[in-house]
């Protein structure tokens, strides 16, 4: 059955997905994801409803809420074409560091929303000694003051740095694939896909949870979007953050149009069907791409985690709006340490 497309068998892909993913917990293959991405707008509501059933069955009704903060902003030597923090483009984002008291304040604010996760992010190729020192001090200060899990996203790591982060008590590490392998060279030229995979694998083996996702809407084909879903599924991350391109002024992708909402929602559902047991998080670009109505559709179409408040360089919704929506949808906030 694997690899056989719906067209080839004459079977409807949503029927196949219902039996295979919902019924047996077997993720969709790359070809099957592509079939889902090719379904028309007239199937969107059925698709979202199915993805929601899958999420409820394998992940339950709760939603993981996370806050993120930039410890070191801008001036990154890498050239990820979607990113306003690269020092290689004429983006207006300037380099700035957050101090430890402000980091702790941000963690406290995040915890006050009921969030269980606080992710510290730095715009770097990989950490240097100064950044690792800041992390050690910052993570200790947060743990002493706030009841929240600390995650990190600091670029590519050495084995020694992986061990150090484990030692600090960092429980989850974010390192995205960004795009499917075949599209990746169009997005990043300063490092390779395999270098990214190396860090992801080291993180998994360390016992930290791996958070690994990507962006869609960067001009990739539907095949390449399906490829990203399949490559993520193969890595089996604990969490997949899904970003919709938010075209940043001055970056090579700055003039691309934002994704169509229906396209974005189809992608959400398709990723859920490829990753039935993974936390699937709304990350950047949801306000721009989906707005309020789309946010709600996605939460009823496979998403079970959100970022609350602002992003690294852009602003998010007021957390009260997100929390009120979760309340209305009867989706409790996932408690600290709660797993499935």
């Amino acid at each position, binding site marked *: 059955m694997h690899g056989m497309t719906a067209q080839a068998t004459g079977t409807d892909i949503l029927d196949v997905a219902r039996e295979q993913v919902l019924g047996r917990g077997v993720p969709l293959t790359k070809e099957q994801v592509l079939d889902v991405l090719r379904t028309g707008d007239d199937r969107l509501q059925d698709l979202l409803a199915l993805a929601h059933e899958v999420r409820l069955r394998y992940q339950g009704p709760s939603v993981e809420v996370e*806050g*993120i*903060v*930039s410890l070191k*902003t801008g001036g990154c030597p890498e050239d990820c074409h979607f990113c306003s923090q690269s020092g290689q483009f004429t983006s*207006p*984002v*300037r*380099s*700035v560091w*957050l101090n430890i008291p*402000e980091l702790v*304040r*941000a963690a406290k*604010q*995040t915890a006050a929303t009921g969030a269980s996760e606080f992710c510290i992010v730095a715009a770097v190729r990989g950490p240097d000694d100064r950044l690792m020192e800041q992390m050690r001090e910052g993570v200790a200060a947060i743990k002493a003051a706030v009841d929240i899990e600390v995650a990190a996203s600091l670029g590519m790591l050495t084995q020694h740095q992986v061990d150090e982060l484990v030692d600090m008590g960092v429980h989850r590490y974010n390192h995205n694939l960004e795009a499917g392998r075949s599209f990746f060279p169009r997005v990043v030229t300063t490092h390779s896909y395999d270098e990214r995979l190396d860090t992801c694998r080291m993180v998994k083996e360390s016992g930290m949870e791996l958070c690994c996702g990507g962006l869609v809407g960067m001009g990739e084909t539907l095949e390449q979007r399906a490829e990203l879903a399949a490559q993520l599924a193969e890595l089996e991350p604990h969490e997949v953050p899904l970003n919709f391109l938010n075209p940043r*002024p001055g970056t090579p992708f700055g003039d691309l149009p934002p994704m169509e909402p229906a396209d974005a929602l189809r992608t959400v559902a398709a990723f859920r069907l490829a990753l039935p047991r993974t936390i699937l998080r709304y990350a950047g670009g949801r*306000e*721009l791409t989906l707005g309020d109505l789309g946010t709600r559709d996605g939460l009823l179409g496979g998403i079970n985690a959100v970022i*609350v*408040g*602002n*992003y*690294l*360089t*852009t*602003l*998010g919704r*007021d*957390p*009260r709006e997100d929390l009120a929506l979760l309340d209305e949808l009867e989706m409790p906030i996932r408690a600290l340490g709660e797993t499935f």
Partner: protein
Amino acid sequence: MVADAGTPEPVPRVGDAGAWCGQCGEARDDAAGHDRCAARAELEPPRFCVHCRRRMRVQVTPGAWTATCSRHGSVERSTWS
């Protein structure tokens, strides 16, 4: 991070209305207008000082942003109610 209270008065603050657009850095009276910039301000902190057009150092946190011009000081805005 907020502008120091000891600064002599005539120094304008980055949040005040000025000659330049904080979003795109172009002149405010530019015929093209700044409607898109105004809309973008909902989802973006300012990047340019409205008084001198310098690029500012901007720190975003989950519930606030702080923008600092080396000449005209800082402004901090809470984004949570």
